């Protein structure tokens, strides 16, 4: 079992920019007359088992689902992945996990309250992106 977890600082900055303000701002991010809005938060690399694994970290907001935020982690490795890899996203103290599909994509549906601090109305931090392969 090998595992790596890295601090996604760039994604935090991107979220700060996108979600600054009250929860309405978060909802407005999806509210530009399209059902779904996609923002790429970060493109970066991590090293697992002595090979580089690149990932694209997206946030998706759906007009019809204002209470949830969908994070998509799309991993790419030169030789692909074995069947049993699991992506994790740690936001503040909460960890969300999802298995990688055949295309190396993990989709994590996160409640809005896990993304925005209910008091300060600011995005919760820090963000860590991880990958575990058996």
């Amino acid at each position: 079992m090998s595992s790596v977890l890295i601090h996604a600082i760039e994604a935090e900055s991107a979220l700060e920019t996108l979600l600054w303000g009250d929860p309405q701002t978060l909802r407005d991010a999806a509210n530009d007359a399209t059902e779904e809005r996609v923002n790429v938060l970060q493109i970066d690399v991590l090293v697992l088992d002595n090979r580089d694994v690149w990932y694209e970290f997206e946030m998706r907001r759906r007009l019809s689902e204002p209470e949830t935020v969908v994070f998509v982690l799309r991993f790419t490795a030169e030789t692909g992945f074995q069947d049993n890899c699991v992506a994790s996203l740690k936001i503040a103290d909460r960890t969300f996990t999802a298995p990688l599909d055949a295309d190396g994509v993990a989709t994590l549906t996160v409640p809005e309250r896990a993304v925005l601090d209910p008091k300060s109305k600011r995005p919760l931090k820090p963000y860590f992106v991880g990958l575990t392969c058996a």
Partner: protein
Amino acid sequence: MTTTAFTPQQIHDLVARHTPAGTPPGYCAILELIIRRNLRRGRVARVQRKSGTPLREYLPEYVERVVRFRREEYGAWLRAQHPDQHAGLYQTLLALAGKVAPHYAWVPDNGLAAEDIASEAFFALIGQGRLCAYPFDTPLTDWLRQFVWLRARRLSQSGPSRRVVTVRLTDLNEESTLSLPSTCLCGKSGCNCQEQHLDHSTGLLKLRPTNQEVARLWAEGYTVEQTARTLGLTVAAVNNRRARIRQALSQSA
């Protein structure tokens, strides 16, 4: 963050044009991600400005560079991340820092020592994972030279990064006896921890996760206010947590 007018499809087409037929799709996909990341981070624009060619016309040339340096430097870049190679990487940084240090003789308290610059660069590259930021558009050694210059400039500025303490690489869970200066955890302005030798890996492990995070940010030079903002805590809470961290570290030392 820098946005660009290039779509992923355009990058895909450019990469396809500049790689030999039969190149595995996974390899091309990584090249595309490298270029998109470099565009987002403004790296391409910075390199392009030096060339004097408009970005749209420059991009094919840039793609060619990434294709070339990914091929030529990949092995060295990956090896440099391996713990077995860290002593060698440090020696490389030390040699580069030796040429930079004389330019910082003006810094108070006898200027910047090459060892301090090399250690600061090493800590950022390995301890903070900045080696992953290598853009594959220039030889690795050239990029490391630029990196050493940037870290020297950072060290020459006032603030927490000037306060250094020797920590062992066990902090990074690596089996190496190499010691390096890092940001001081004594937490008082103007403190001088240069003579202290702490191995705080055990102490840090005893801390609760949030306190470990506070300690990590502290070591990175975050102020109390910045830490509070980053972790969503109050300033008083950060001060309390720092006190507990200091206590834990002094016990483990």
